[in-house]
């Protein structure tokens, strides 16, 4: 099983996780910029974090054979803090970077006027920088938040085919299915979604525009729940090809719209390690 986790916060995870993920078949990930648990108090704190997403974390993932990409944004929660809002001025510089495959996570936390403003401004940046957008739906008052998110997407003029609405569940999926946006589900050990409920949604709504992620972060979460969902799909009668559609081809198709996905095997991993200049027999020692 090859797995592309389209939403995982590796900054908060250990190298043990990277090793387990590679062993489970994870070869590519997207790490959306989000909040860090501890609130930030300055723009500099954001830029150091952004630098990590396109620098250290990408390097760290590569050491374990995993292609790391990210999305950049001012998250909805911190859009309410005036000390953080000026990060929107430096964001365009980061949206030009390699490996930045969307604007996100944007959207709503408490649905305040400040969140409206940041959401709208960042959807406009996605259009301007020709990037897709990743929209986080709120934990509280979720149905209303999802509807308001879809309204904001519609009025921004961005193509719904370039938008993910994330953290969906049984009660929010239908509105998004109808909108033309992509539907993403975070599989958690005990909140959000679980593998069996996910399989039921896939049965009801089909595989098109469907994304499954672990959204693993600093809270109770598990980077391998993507794999567990694939296994649950097989147990429920879905084919290997169906699993590949949901866990690889769909995220590749969505984030491929950025033109900035890099999915070549990393040097030293996979088939590239056994070949030398296109020949199947190793003819020279590999420099380390």
């Amino acid at each position, binding site marked *: 099983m090859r797995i592309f986790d389209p939403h995982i916060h590796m900054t908060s995870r250990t190298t043990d996780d990277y090793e387990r993920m590679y062993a489970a078949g994870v070869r590519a990930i997207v790490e959306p910029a989000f909040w860090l648990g501890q609130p930030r108090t300055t723009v500099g704190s954001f830029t150091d974090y952004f630098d990590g997403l396109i*620098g250290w974390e990408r390097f760290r993932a590569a050491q374990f054979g995993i292609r790391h990409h990210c999305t950049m944004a001012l998250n909805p929660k911190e859009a309410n803090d005036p000390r953080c809002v000026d990060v929107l001025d430096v964001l365009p510089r980061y949206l030009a970077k390699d490996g930045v495959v969307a604007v996100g996570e944007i959207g709503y936390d408490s649905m305040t006027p400040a969140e409206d403003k940041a959401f709208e401004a960042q959807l406009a940046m996605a259009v301007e920088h020709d990037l897709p957008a990743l929209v986080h739906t709120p934990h509280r008052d979720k149905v209303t938040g999802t509807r308001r998110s879809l309204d904001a997407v519609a009025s921004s003029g961005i193509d719904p085919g370039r938008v993910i609405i994330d953290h969906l569940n049984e009660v929010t999926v239908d509105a998004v299915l109808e909108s033309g946006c992509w539907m993403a589900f975070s599989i958690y050990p005990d909140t959000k979604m679980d593998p069996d409920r996910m399989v039921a949604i896939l049965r009801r709504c089909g595989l098109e525009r469907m994304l499954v992620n672990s959204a693993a972060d600093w809270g109770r979460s598990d980077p391998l729940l993507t794999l567990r969902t694939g296994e649950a799909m097989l147990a429920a009668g879905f084919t290997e090809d169906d699993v590949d559609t949901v866990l690889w081809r769909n995220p590749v198709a969505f984030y491929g719209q950025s033109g900035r996905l890099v999915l070549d095997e990393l*040097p030293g991993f996979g088939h590239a390690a056994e070949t*030398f200049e*296109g020949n199947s027999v190793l003819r020279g020692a590999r420099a380390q």
Partner: protein
Amino acid sequence: MSALRFGYGTNGFANHRLGDALAVIADLGYAGVALTLDHDHLDPFADDLPRRVDAVRAELAGRDLGVVIETGARYLLDPRRKHHPTLVSAAEEDRAVRVDFLRRAVRIAAELGAECVSFWSGVLPPGTDEATAWQRLGDGVSAVLDEAVRLGVVLGMEPEPGMFVERLSGVEELRARLGDPERLRVTLDIGHCVANERDPVAECVRRAGPLLVNVQLDDMVPGVHEHLEFGDGALDLPDALAALVDVGYRGLAAVELPRHSHAAPDVAARSIAALRGAAWIADAQRRIREKPSSIRTLFPAAGRHCGRGPLHPAADPAGVVDGTTDDAARVRLLAALGRDGASEVANLYRYGDDAEKRGVLRGLSIMDGVLPVDIGLDLVRDALRTNDTRLVAAALGPYAAAHLDQHGWRHGVLKCLFVGVPLAAVARLDERADAELRRMVADFAAERRAAGRTVPADAERLMTDHGGGS
């Protein structure tokens, strides 16, 4: 972006049927072909030539390919002697065979709507004096020109190393002798310019400028007439392409690799990637010279346009020692910044991702004298504080060798041993290595041994090598 139209020479697809070659070339995104008439590629002596010409014309049109006609087939006219006979052969009847062939080529070009017919002079038989040679060449070219004028076809004469006309100056002289005929122009092989011209490539392009009707692209090293893939010789491809854009060249620029047919599809794919990357660099450099701040969006985009692979995959598969193609591209962009743009450099690093930071570090030595040393050293020291092996390696290039204090430099070298960067990445290692560094490395080795671990071979070598400073 680039105004250039890239093509590929069918003589580099000698093991393909012509139709298959056109399909592969078109699918890779080339805009045209340089079609060498040969025994199995539109044989000009075939009985059913008109039908074959119609078929090729339809195929070119269907694939939206432009075409120039090349006439350098090796054994088309004489199965025993390569490239024989020629316009300067000794016997009149031999020269007539070549003239007849070239006039056929002109008629085929007219039928195909080709942009030109390209030809060369031929190797002068030993003992022939120069006046005789010019006479033979002038007569032959005039006879071909008559047909070209009649059918509205343009001729491009190619200087060919080792032949009677082997430099651009020879074509210029022939034109002067014939009264500067409108339809006699120049085919320029960019690799030949590297190998055999006295002027630099860009100057040759400028000289040929208004007369240029056909361009062949390949790499070479000075003094050696061997067609090489881009990057394997001494050609500065972005500079050559920039010169073609500067003179307003609108014709085909076709890759000329006649000895690479055995791997043609792969070579053609690599070639177009190299050409697109080089054209992007040339265009980006022009934009940066016009407006230095445009480097802020061009610098991050280099990998997307030029690729990210190691420069020397066999010796340095991870690109740690010699860097990557995007590193090299970014150094070119920095070179275009000049003095006015030096203030951009620190922010390119500050806001750069890992690859951009590496590009800045590898470009520091060419910014030396333009960028204040304290600023450059700040960036080197920042990189040496990271644990990213590729940043650490890039930081210890020639700039650090020239400017970094001895203590900081020693710790940089030791860090390489710690994180597994080959010491080949450290510029002027033997010159700057001193007794204190050897002591530090010996302690490091002792610590490794005490823990039951292996000592890197680079560390062993450094400890036993007593050359250099002390």
